[in-house]
């Protein structure tokens, strides 16, 4: 059984995001790139399935992007993934989520997968649909925002618990399938020191446009259905209005302001 885990390199949550002078890119200076937090759950789940099933399971981490994504692939290897694939080509640059999904779908097909795991969303573009688009291009079923995953003994089916508003949906899937992972699914492990040493030496497979059955006009900016016009900074919030007085006076004044000024209650 082969499990493909999709991992993305994103700015750390604490990073300040500064719009570059051109208005359509983010200034990379000072940004620390890390594995997308939701992808950590995906890697961990792949490793746990391998440990549970004991035999004949391979976990392959796949990441798309410039050279820096090699670092998150090394992190996945250090956590315990068996192999890693770096999908990169100048032709892929500037692609929107659909264009990237088209490339990743073909990369997954090339590697071969019985189960594809990814994070529920990337915390950079926050599109949260790349994995589902990959599933559509691969024509496989999906369950997203999953907090529990159980495979059948014969490894042909899976049941996923998926979070929706006020309820959990139990989704039954025929494999191969796409699962996007949420917090609660597991506790991701830290890479061990021997794991990190081993990961450093591991060869990472390179995949480019020439390896995939796609034309240049289907990928990157040319293959995109959307175009970034520009980035905007956040509108400044007016300064906070502090409410003075003792507790009784504060409560009374807050109620008045919410009713008369903000008109929200």
């Amino acid at each position: 059984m082969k499990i493909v885990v999709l991992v993305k390199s994103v700015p750390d949550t604490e990073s300040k995001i500064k719009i570059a002078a051109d208005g359509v890119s983010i200034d990379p200076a000072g940004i620390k790139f890390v594995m997308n937090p939701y992808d950590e759950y995906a890697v961990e789940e792949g490793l746990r399935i391998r440990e549970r099933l004991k035999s004949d399971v391979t976990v392959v981490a796949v990441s798309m992007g410039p050279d820096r994504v090699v670092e998150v692939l090394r992190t996945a290897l250090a956590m315990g993934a068996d192999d890693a694939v770096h999908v990169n080509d100048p032709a892929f640059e500037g692609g929107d989520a659909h264009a990237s999904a088209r490339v990743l779908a073909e990369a997954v097909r090339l590697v071969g997968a019985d189960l594809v795991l990814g994070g529920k969303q990337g915390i950079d573009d926050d599109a949260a649909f790349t994995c589902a688009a990959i599933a559509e291009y691969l024509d496989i079923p999906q369950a997203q925002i999953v907090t529990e995953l159980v495979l059948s003994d014969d490894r042909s089916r899976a049941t996923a618990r998926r979070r929706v508003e006020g309820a959990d949906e139990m989704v039954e899937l025929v494999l191969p399938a796409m699962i996007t992972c949420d917090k609660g699914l597991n506790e991701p492990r830290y890479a061990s020191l021997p794991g990190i040493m081993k990961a450093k030496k591991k060869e990472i497979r390179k995949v480019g446009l020439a390896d995939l059955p796609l034309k240049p006009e289907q990928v990157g900016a040319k293959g995109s259905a959307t175009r970034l016009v520009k980035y905007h900074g956040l509108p400044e919030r007016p300064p906070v209005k502090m409410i003075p007085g003792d507790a009784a006076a504060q409560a009374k004044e807050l109620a008045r302001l919410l009713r008369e000024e903000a008109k929200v209650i």
Partner: protein
Amino acid sequence: MAKTILVFGEVRNGALKPITRELVTAAAQLAQAGGGAVALGLVGDGAEQAAGDAKALPVAKVYTATHALLSSYSSQGYAVALAAIVQAADAGVVLFGATAMGRDLAARASARCGAALFSDCTELGLSNGTLRVKRPVYSGKVVAEVESVAPVQMATIRPNIFAPATGSGSADVVAVPVQIEEKHVRGRVKEVVQTATGTRDITEAEIIVAGGRSLKSAENFALLEDLAKTVGASVGASRAAVDAGYRPHSAQVGQTGKVVNPKLYIAVGISGAIQHLVGMRTSKVIVAINKDENAPIFQKADYGIVGDLFEIVPKITEEFKKLRG
């Protein structure tokens, strides 16, 4: 002739979800600016039942697509059915709620239709048939203005941005035939387990009262529940409070929790770590109550109260009760 602006009508238990009415308002505004008729698309079990409510809304047509294999939700199956409605309606724009189902289906349907997709939009405009939107990215630290270059364009829209549409009309209901096979429903919902009790999920709530670890125990959250009850609010929590076991993860606001967009967000004993702020910063009005006057939450708040939450919250509950009579 301008293309149709289609709203995906989300149906739960045979009834339209509130977000659908908000989307009809959004669609009407787009139609006013860019032309085209507004229509509603209903898929699967309950579509015919919900069509009764739907046809009263200010829409030109209601399209339904039902099939025996669509008796429970399936991303793939629903996407096939919705694609048939998109074609039948000659839709150029399709709007979904940024809900669990709306996001899941929009992702799949956009790939199937070769459409552009914009997630979690907070603003949208239509000119010469081209959809242009604003949406928060990088956890809400920056806003991206993006436009479509595809003939069909889809968007998911956050709740509580547009006023819900009402109406007493009687739009035509058109049943769209769909071919669904077993291969289209290889993933489908087998069971729905209810987790929330009575109140709206925080992602759909108009008012949220959220607490942090300063509440000190799960029992003390009763203070917030009492306050929430007076204004029909839902109770949320910071990551610290969830990690401490005071509230379930389904109530967590912020990174690794939920992004919420209420009209009013009352943060009680929450200091305002960046991981929390990214989940609630788009709230229309933010109230912060904290004993530390230097807590970062005050920089994001509209109204601030420095003091002991155990003393202040019950007093606010009293005042809200008075207001609500």
